[in-house]
């Protein structure tokens, strides 16, 4: 198989950490692939898979709208490209968003993941926390969840599989080729979720 091309959207946020985690995942799985930082529609059009990292969803959304990246990402995901959205990435992928304090916002969204997301769901930075979470449906029984001003999912559509809950709040989901978490696996040394994403990607290429 030819080299897999995975991109990390590098408009804003913790890009380098996701590049490092994905590179480590490829290496451990023995898969021939490269991980690049992508910003422009041209770069995105060449990808086999995309990670939308943590950051500020309003900023990533507005700026990728301005340069046409948002449209290109939507097209690619609709045509089957796997995507992993983390925190801000989860928010951008979703269909509906509201902020815990401010309420409805009119921020740009990809409108693909059939969930309703509550931003800043666990509170402000002082309430940010680390805790052990479990993602049994994808065979990850223990994972150190790093929740930073994290969102949570309040409603899911029929096609959405819930893969993790924390204190009754939904914090990780999968819908077809879309994987999304409210916490930050890239801020830990545990690469099992990035490995899981790479495997989804590999499968999608085989199915083509």
């Amino acid at each position: 198989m030819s080299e897999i091309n995975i991109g990390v959207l590098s408009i804003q946020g913790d890009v380098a950490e996701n590049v490092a985690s994905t590179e480590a995942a490829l290496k451990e799985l023995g898969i021939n692939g490269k991980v690049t930082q992508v910003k422009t529609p041209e770069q995105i059009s060449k990808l086999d898979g995309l990670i939308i990292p943590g950051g500020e969803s309003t900023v990533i959304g507005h700026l990728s709208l301005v340069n046409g990246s948002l449209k290109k990402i939507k097209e690619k995901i609709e045509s089957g490209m796997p995507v992993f959205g983390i925190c801000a990435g989860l928010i951008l992928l979703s269909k509906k968003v509201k902020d815990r304090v401010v309420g409805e916002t009119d921020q740009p969204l990809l409108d693909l993941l059939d969930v309703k997301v509550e931003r800043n769901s666990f509170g402000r930075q002082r309430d940010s926390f680390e805790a052990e979470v479990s993602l049994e449906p994808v065979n990850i029984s223990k994972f150190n969840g790093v929740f930073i001003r994290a969102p949570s999912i309040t409603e899911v559509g029929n096609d959405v599989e819930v893969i993790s809950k924390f204190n009754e709040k939904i914090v990780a989901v999968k819908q077809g080729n879309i994987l999304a978490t409210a916490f930050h696996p890239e801020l830990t040394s545990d690469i099992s979720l990035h490995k899981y994403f790479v495997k989804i990607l590999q499968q999608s290429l085989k199915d083509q």
Partner: protein
Amino acid sequence: MIPLSGDLPKAKGIVNEKIESNVITRGTSTLKRGLAHMLKNGVVMDVTTVEQAQIAEDAGAVSVMVLDKLPSDVRKAGGVARTASVRVIQEIMDAVTIPVMAKCRIGHVYEARVLEETDVDMIDESEVLTPADENHHIWKWDFTTPFVNGSRSLAEALRRIEEGAAMIRTKGEPGTGNVAEAVLHIKKFNDELRIIKSIYDSGDNQDLVKMAREFRVSYDLVNETARVGRLPVVNFAAGGISTPADAAYLMLLGCDGIFVGSGIFKAEDAKERAHAIVLATTFWEDPDKVKEAQKMIDERQSMLGLDVKELELRMQDRGSTA
């Protein structure tokens, strides 16, 4: 990649709590430094009112910093500059969805406590305000809320990190509209990092110990910084940034993001300028996009600015020796 490790054992700011059947931990370095990582490649804007905060959020600011007066007005007003009104900070927190920071005076432990209780997302122990303690900065490990500190040399930055700062910014010279000092500080940083990196690569541990003594920080911190060849926390540029080109230049010099103080709301075209500075910070690698951003502003509407050599008050000197 910037390491996230480095908790002080038994730091008072780290809190364990049981919620329902789960144990959670707050205030770890991963959470504090992690927030700074989420801000990377973004612009933090100084604001004094709810209206300004909303303009900043709409323009694409990654966070807002609440002050009582913009740095250039602090300069003009003289007197003692203190932390902003709690009421104003709360109004801004209720109005925007992005993280809200606020400044406290250097060494003023209780202004910081008040800001933590107000629930701001990050505290800036800032030289823009009048220092409360010239000899000691706040021991930031005691707080669950993360801190950002200014510095103008590697030694100063590492001393702040040793005290628990989760993020660093250059000091520059605030409220001048003049980017020269920020440029000077980041270049000094980069030079000093190159020196300790080369010592590390040569394997001369004795020389690293000597550097640690010179910097007045622990050997471990110098060793870790030398190993990765950069600061072990996120490092933003601040002080005098006024135009999209200023922001892009500091990104080119290796900063992780940008703070803009007086540069936006002291200009006459604040709205366009805020947006333009965000665009230039995001797309700094592309000169054509920075030109488009620069085109959005009118130089005749930039803040006039001050010559750093003629200043009566050099804010950057505050807290530098401690």
